[in-house]
């Protein structure tokens, strides 16, 4: 057996936890003692912890390779066990190719963002708190991806939700023009929207346990497959249901969970608001890692989805749950892509873009193209993190410029260092508004280049990472589901268009604001991670080039583990590749990978067309000033794009929900439940019984007995007490008496 490092898996969690403790407990003291060195300690400590976790992931990756990719479960301890109910949840790590892929992405991108944040958060009064939260996020995210059961996944799921809440509201004291605490509100919105999905997750877990008697992945999946092959029904005590319908319910609930965490219709509304958090947070949590956990969940549960697909079960006879996943993903991709047209906030554009790209992944997962979904997840993590961090760099630069002119105008040095997204209310300058930018390509060269790479990768231009992954999804769509394919293609065009618009508005043309004219490049601690991410965004497509899969089966069987076969060959070991036929389960040697030159050609031509359209036609010379309206604003597409989903949500769904809740609370809860049931039946009975118990049972019976025993003991003690005279003589006398009596007894009686 080759050497392996599976035993190191717990360290994945230990390192971030050490970081949390360090920054949470003592980090602040370092900073109070000395601002500059303290920040270095705090930030680098957290970054080193993230890097250490990355190293552990790499070791696990190498171990898997030398272990012929066989999944390994590292059992740490039994977490919950109720033997009488057959309930047992271990705290164990699932080390397989899927989870290691996620670990590598989370810790790798996470480390880069940690390092970037050292520069970005410079000067923030709560510097160490920020890094404590970031490490805490890593901790929970790693629980999420490494757990070997749904309950651990759920712990991580809730934990990252908490960290998301904490980090969106990191500047919780910031208020908008109306004096509302907008960051705190955004955090709350994210939290509440996620609760809806989490509730579905809990139901799904309960149902899973009820049906299969376990929450661990492996037993659940194998049990489900067995039942599928034998055509067994699922029994719930008195009644039973077909496996297909039960799994339809489970997978639909998983989908609802995923729509919450991965910001899909109808729960996506929280993600754009989440951009209130510091930019590294947007990059790490709301682009690269946390929001992809919904995709991870679906890919992880691929067996369940495939069984539903094969069993032909549908929701109310309309659509099967995997198809529903695909449609929701595609619809979200298109809708969010359109909304992104109308945004002026540089980060909001990226936020909607993220929602749109997550839609791509969800759609891919729904079509059964799990590898494509994971592939896009990885490349998206690269270039979207790059774009967010790049936008952070732009914002940072704009603030610098703004400070510069501010200092000029007032003729004195401005104290206080730039603080990321901090607004300067005094002149209503918004460093995130694209209308105030322009021409930054000269002032911020590095940022411009890497941003350009990220944008082109996102738009899907050959040969950058985004092209390969997006194209794989589109190719799957063209094979399996034409509607999804069309929706996604339009979404891809939108992507290219809004990225072209953003590039043009931010980096090209003339500066439309004094601040843009004086913007400055960010420090190296920020640009180096950007460059690394840019490299990854260029090369990321190499992970799963279509040509690599040529003859996977043959190569693989000859050199198991010895040849790099791309993501396809790698993930094959944890994403069960099987086809469900009339005869039962047929395992396939590999998951099908598709590449269609036609599809790729069309999408490339469309993307380039959209970019050209945005660059040279629509935004060719406009807008020239910050006040000029967007050229799209007079066209119907604008009105379609401002599709007031948020308004709809706020005006109809929320009040409707409120009214329903109000009615439930007033009539059902108070009038019936409280007033009648509680007061009349429960309370009166209870009060009557309590009176009986208190006055008769307790006062007369129990108290009488207790008091009687007490006074008896007191009287007895008083009587015995008299023998203790305190005179040594008396004690000696009694000892002597005892001695003589014993002696006499032994001598005369004993024999």
């Amino acid at each position, binding site marked *: 057996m080759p050497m392996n490092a599976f035993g190191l898996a717990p360290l994945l969690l230990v390192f971030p936890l050490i970081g949390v403790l360090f920054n949470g407990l003592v980090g602040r003291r370092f900073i109070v003692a000395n601002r500059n060195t303290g920040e270095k300690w705090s930030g680098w400590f957290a970054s080193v912890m993230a890097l250490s976790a990355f190293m552990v992931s790499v070791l696990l990756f190498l171990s898997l390779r030398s272990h012929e990719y066989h999944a390994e479960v590292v059992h740490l301890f039994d977490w919950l066990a109720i033997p009488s109910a057959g309930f047992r949840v271990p705290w164990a790590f699932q080390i397989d190719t899927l989870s290691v892929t996620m670990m590598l992405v989370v810790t790798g991108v996470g480390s880069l963002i940690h390092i970037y944040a050292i520069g970005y958060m410079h000067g923030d009064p709560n510097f160490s708190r920020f890094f404590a939260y970031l490490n805490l996020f890593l901790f929970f995210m790693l629980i999420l991806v490494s757990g070997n059961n749904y309950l651990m996944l759920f712990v991580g799921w809730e934990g990252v939700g908490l960290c998301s809440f904490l980090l969106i509201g990191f500047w919780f004291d910031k208020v908008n023009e109306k004096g509302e605490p907008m960051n705190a509100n955004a955090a709350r919105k994210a939290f509440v929207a996620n609760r809806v999905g989490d509730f579905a997750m809990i139901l799904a877990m309960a149902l899973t346990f009820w049906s299969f008697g376990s929450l661990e992945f492996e037993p659940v999946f194998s049990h489900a497959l067995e039942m599928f092959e034998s055509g067994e029904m699922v029994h719930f005590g008195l009644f039973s249901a077909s496996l297909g319908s039960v799994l339809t319910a489970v997978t639909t609930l998983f989908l609802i969970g995923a729509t919450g965490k991965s910001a899909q219709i109808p729960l996506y509304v929280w993600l754009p608001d989440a951009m209130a958090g510091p930019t590294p947070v947007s990059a790490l949590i709301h682009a690269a890692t946390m929001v992809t956990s919904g995709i991870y969940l679906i890919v992880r549960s691929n067996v369940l989805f495939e069984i539903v697909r094969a069993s032909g079960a549908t929701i109310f006879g309309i659509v099967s749950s995997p198809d529903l996943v695909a449609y929701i993903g595609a619809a979200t991709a298109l809708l969010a892509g359109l909304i992104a047209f109308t945004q002026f906030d540089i980060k909001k554009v990226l936020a909607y873009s993220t929602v749109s790209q997550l839609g791509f992944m969800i759609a891919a997962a729904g079509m059964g193209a799990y590898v494509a979904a994971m592939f896009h997840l990885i490349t998206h993590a690269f270039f979207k993190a790059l774009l967010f961090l790049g936008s952070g760099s732009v914002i940072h630069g704009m603030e610098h410029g703004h400070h510069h002119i501010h200092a000029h105008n007032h003729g004195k040095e401005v104290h206080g260092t730039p603080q990321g997204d901090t607004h300067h209310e005094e002149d209503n300058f918004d460093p995130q508004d694209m209308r105030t930018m322009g021409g930054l390509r000269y002032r911020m060269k590095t940022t411009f280049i890497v941003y350009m790479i990220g944008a082109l990768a996102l738009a899907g231009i050959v040969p950058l990472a985004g092209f390969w992954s997006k194209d794989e999804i589109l190719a799957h769509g063209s094979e399996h589901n034409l509607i999804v394919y069309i929706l996604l293609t339009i979404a891809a065009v939108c992507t290219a268009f809004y990225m072209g618009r953003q590039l043009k508005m931010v980096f090209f043309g003339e500066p439309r604001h004094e601040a843009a004219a004086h913007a400055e490049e960010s420090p190296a601690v920020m640009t180096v991670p950007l460059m690394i991410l840019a490299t990854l965004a260029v090369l990321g497509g190499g992970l799963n080039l279509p040509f690599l899969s040529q003859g996977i089966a043959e190569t693989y069987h000859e050199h198991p583990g010895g040849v790099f076969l791309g993501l396809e060959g790698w993930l094959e070991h944890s994403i069960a590749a099987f086809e469900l036929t009339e005869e039962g389960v047929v395992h396939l040697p590999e998951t099908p990978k598709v590449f269609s030159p036609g599809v790729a050609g069309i999408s490339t031509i469309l993307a380039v067309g959209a970019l050209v359209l945005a660059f040279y036609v629509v935004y060719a010379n406009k807008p020239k000033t910050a006040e000029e309206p967007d050229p799209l604003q007079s066209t119907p597409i604008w009105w379609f794009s401002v599709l007031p989903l948020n308004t709809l949500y706020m005006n109809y769904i929320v009040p409707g929900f409120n009214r329903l809740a109000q009615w439930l609370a007033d009539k059902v809860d108070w009038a019936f439940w409280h007033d009648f049931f509680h007061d009349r039946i429960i309370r009166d009975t209870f009060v009557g019984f309590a009176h009986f118990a208190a006055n008769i049972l307790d006062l007369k019976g129990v108290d009488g007995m207790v008091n009687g025993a007490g006074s008896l003991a007191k009287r007895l003690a008083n009587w015995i007490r008299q*023998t203790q005279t305190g005179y040594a003589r008396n004690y000696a006398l009694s000892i002597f008496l005892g001695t003589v009596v014993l002696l006499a007894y032994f001598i005369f009686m004993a024999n």
Partner: protein
Amino acid sequence: MPEVTIDWYVALSVILFSIGALGVLLRRNAIILFMSIEMMLNAANLAFVAFARHLGDLDGQVLVFFVITVAAAEVAVGLVLIVTIFRTKKSINIDEIHLMKG
């Protein structure tokens, strides 16, 4: 002429022990009380040595050695207690000391 046997020594030991016990029970002077205790220990020692002689075993003498050592320690502590009590109560009358009265 009767032979002196072990019985004679035991009898003497018992008599001395009884006199010591009476001293403990009847005297009120704490110091004399202590002397009586020493007397009782000595009576026991006498019996030990006599038995050692009778049985031809050295262990009896070893035991006496230990008793004498413990007695020395006991006298030292006991006397200092008497001194301390005398300091506070200005008396060594054993009947005036009954703080342990229940």
